[in-house]
């Protein structure tokens, strides 16, 4: 019989369907590529001596990476980009995660200006977890093709469960921070939607005045709180999981459609929630889509 401690750790132990973490791996490292590669391809504009830089992460790296000769910077950028791509395609994933994590952190520390965003908090957490736990390459990867193991593929739960925890805690505490900031009474969403053309909101939203009305923006403020405080819990309950996932995904599509936020933010949060799906959920979804899964 399982002890209380075994039950407590059960979500993190044993094995699970590898598809959700494989999809997340591709989305996450794809998002990192979109976010970092432009800066890494414009080394002279962002890391050359004399350019304006901001110190956001490790001060030691800010000082020392800035002093590296150009050839060393170029080599480091190339190795980092290669490692990110290897993670995305699932080739020597753990080693590649270590190299890409260290490389991206070093470049983000050397100059925050081209890459700084709060989504990096979650990116660092996920990269640390990937370095420590490894995994995520049992499906949709070159490693899986190389190994060609017979029988159904499985993946340890540890990495995907800890990443899911990381994402859900970020979403939940975003809601808490908004509550503490006085939402929805302050109608911050109304303020956000009233920003002039060219500032944070996308042009179509600026050009759609009926969306700026107090009733709509207050409703969206409440909805934001509901999603951020509710879905992290409802995603963990099997009976409410699929409905919560639909609401959650619609919420993040809404954010990226309305506001100019980095794609990395969307890739982490929208795809991260897929990690809540287990084999039973995936079979249920496949059956509904008319493609039953064994």
């Amino acid at each position, binding site marked *: 019989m399982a002890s209380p401690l075994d039950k407590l750790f059960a979500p993190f*132990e044993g094995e699970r369907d590898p598809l959700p973490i494989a999809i997340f791996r591709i989305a996450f490292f794809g998002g990192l590529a979109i976010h970092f590669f432009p800066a890494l391809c414009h080394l002279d504009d962002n890391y050359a001596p004399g350019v*304006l830089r901001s110190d956001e992460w490790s001060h030691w790296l800010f000082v020392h990476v800035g002093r590296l000769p150009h050839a060393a910077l170029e080599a480091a950028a190339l190795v980092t980009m290669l490692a990110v791509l290897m993670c995305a395609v699932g080739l020597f994933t753990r080693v590649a995660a270590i190299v890409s994590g260290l490389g991206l952190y070093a470049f983000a520390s050397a100059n925050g200006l081209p890459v700084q965003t709060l989504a990096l908090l979650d990116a660092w*957490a996920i990269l640390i977890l990937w370095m420590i736990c490894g995994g995520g390459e049992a499906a949709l990867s070159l490693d899986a093709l190389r190994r060609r193991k017979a029988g159904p593929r499985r993946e340890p739960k540890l990495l995907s469960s800890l990443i899911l925890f990381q994402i859900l805690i970020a979403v939940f505490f975003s809601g808490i921070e908004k509550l503490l900031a006085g939402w929805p009474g302050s109608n911050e969403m109304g303020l956000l939607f009233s920003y002039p053309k060219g500032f944070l909101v996308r042009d179509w939203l600026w050009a759609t005045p009926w969306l700026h009305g107090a009733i709509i923006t207050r409703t969206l403020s409440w909805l934001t709180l509901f999603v951020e405080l509710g879905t992290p819990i409802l995603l963990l309950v099997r009976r409410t999981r699929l409905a919560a996932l639909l609401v959650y995904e619609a919420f993040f599509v809404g954010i990226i459609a309305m506001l100019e936020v980095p794609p990395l933010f969307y890739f982490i949060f929208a795809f991260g929630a897929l990690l809540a799906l287990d084999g039973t959920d995936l079979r249920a979804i496949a059956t509904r889509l008319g493609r039953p899964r064994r």
Partner: protein
Amino acid sequence: MSRTARRIFIAVWILLGLAGALDQTVALDVLGRRLDLVLPNLRYGYVMFNRNPRTVQVYSYLGKDGARHPLSELVPTPALGYSRARMEMNLLGDPDDLAEICYRAARATSSPLIFVVDEYRLDDDTHHPSRTVNLRCDTHGLAPR
């Protein structure tokens, strides 16, 4: 990883995650200060839009056609899908970045450029700028026009 080591790691990671989240939300009120939890993922709060600026600047420049274009077009490093927000956030955090954008733009073109900064005070008027400043950008730097 042995089972015990794995469980210790899980417990520590979860507790640190919760401590980091509480550090950014209630620590200042309860302890009077924030804690340094060392890990980079615990350094800042998670949310960006909880309190939004009520005075904002919109940056543009006059093109050769005389029309206004987003100033982010002059930033050499692309930011896919959010180039204006990237530039605006950088300028909010570090206003010196405007001189840097000018420096790079001036090097790339022979003729001077006019930067236009529209400031909106949203508590007063959301549709019209409360102030507009034109700046001349050339190889000597930025200067009021």
